């Protein structure tokens, strides 16, 4: 579908600018909030109007857009090529600004209102701000299809690299915890009623998850040379039936994997909501017993474009050649005492991500590394 050449991620974990996933950052008040960088180099006059989702989206995009200044927090990032288009997936960017504007409408009874937040209240504000800051006049769009917003952005980018060989695109998935994202979904029962640490996310047998947020950006094109990873296939589905999702997974594996290829790691979007568990378990059920399973929502929390974090994590795992112990759910062979040393390592090239949003929107994303990943469960 497409090749990923550079990635950045602002998340609740230490992912920006240099990833260090060994130490796990825990949720506070059932929220996993991002660790914001200092945004050195981004003009203050642009930053001052941005709500958090725009800030983290632009902040994560920034190193992929321009030659970093010496001494800035981006200086370690290699210089990027020119960008031919910007494609952002976000369910709710602009919603915080919308709520602020509504407050004005109500407080001032539709009187004289300050328009700044209204201008920033459309979800395309992230992609628009990135184009403004980089003076990019190319393709620019924003996909907002809730739990499949990032997947549609990914599909758009895959079509673009096919339509325009040798063009580079900036692809991203961004959402924030805010009055809208959190309060409305809390009322609707999607977050835990009782405070819970993200470290115990998978142990709690109750409804709801922990709120999360993040911005994961990717520089993509059609060229395999020097790529970090390749997105091989994507499938999406709207369904409330775990059996239908399982059938889709079976079909995905049967039709997309070539003879002799196998999934080396299943990256599951399990989120601690016991109502969604049947989706994840029924998928795991049809996987070969020797396929390791890892999870990521204890790192980024639940949000509609969390699959973008998962794609970032997959790229990181394929690159770093190690799997942090806290993400492992099942590691076949690791309990076998006779299986140590080199024989213990699992060559890992193919990662399959399964994510579900609210048990209604589902996606499978298959990512292949350019070199083998070695899993070291005893690390």
């Amino acid at each position, binding site marked *: 579908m497409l090749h990923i050449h550079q990635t950045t991620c602002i998340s609740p974990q230490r992912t920006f600018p240099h990833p260090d996933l060994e130490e796990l950052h825990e949720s506070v008040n059932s929220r996993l909030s991002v660790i914001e960088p200092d945004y050195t180099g981004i003009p*203050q*006059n642009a*930053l*001052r*109007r941005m709500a958090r989702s725009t800030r983290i989206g632009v902040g994560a995009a920034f190193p992929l857009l321009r030659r970093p200044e010496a001494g800035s927090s981006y200086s370690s990032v290699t210089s990027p090529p020119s960008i031919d288009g910007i494609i952002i997936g976000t369910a709710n960017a602009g919603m915080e600004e919308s709520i602020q504007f509504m407050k004005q409408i109500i407080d001032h009874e539709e009187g*004289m*209102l*300050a*328009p*700044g937040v209204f*201008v920033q209240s459309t979800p395309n504000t992230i992609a628009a701000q990135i184009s403004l800051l980089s003076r990019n006049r190319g393709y620019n769009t924003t996909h907002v299809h809730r739990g499949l917003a990032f997947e549609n952005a990914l599909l758009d980018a895959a079509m673009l690299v096919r339509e325009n060989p040798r063009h580079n695109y900036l692809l991203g998935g961004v959402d924030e915890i805010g009055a809208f994202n959190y309060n409305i979904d809390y009322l609707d029962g999607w977050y835990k009623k009782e405070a819970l640490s993200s470290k115990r996310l998978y142990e709690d047998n109750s409804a709801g998850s922990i709120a999360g947020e993040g911005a994961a950006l990717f520089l993509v094109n059609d060229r395999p040379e020097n790529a970090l990873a390749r997105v091989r296939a994507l499938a999406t589905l709207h369904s409330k039936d775990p059996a239908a999702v399982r059938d889709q997974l079976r079909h995905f594996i049967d039709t997309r994997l070539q003879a002799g290829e196998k999934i080396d790691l299943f990256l599951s979007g399990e989120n601690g909501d016991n109502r969604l568990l049947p989706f994840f378990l029924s998928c795991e059920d049809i996987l070969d017993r020797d396929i390791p399973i890892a999870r990521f929502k204890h790192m980024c929390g639940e949000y509609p474009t969390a699959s973008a974090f998962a794609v970032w994590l997959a790229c990181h795992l394929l690159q770093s050649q190690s799997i942090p112990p806290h993400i492992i759910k099942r590691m076949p062979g690791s309990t076998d005492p006779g299986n140590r040393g080199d024989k213990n390592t699992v060559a890992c090239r193919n990662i399959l991500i399964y994510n579900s949003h609210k048990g209604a929107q589902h996606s499978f994303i298959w990512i292949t590394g350019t070199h083998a990943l070695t899993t070291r469960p005893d690390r």
Partner: protein
Amino acid sequence: METAPLKEHLKKQIIAFLNLTSVKPEDIKDDQPLFGEGEGLGLDSIDSLELIVLLNREFGIVIQDPKEGRKVLVNINTMVDYIEKHRTK
């Protein structure tokens, strides 16, 4: 009439209203252009609409035509002149 306290107050209001987090009141010179990069404070057309709202909420001044507003919103001195002449609170 002593305008220094009003100027100081206005600068604080502008910084808060426009979220100019990196600017301190003493950074804004009384005759510094509010709009435009370089010499100016770097404000734009949306800020000018915001400042018209600020004048309304803080001083009860009604400016209907944004173009009229731009004549008032040149720098701190011009704003203070206008406020003193037209304020209703």
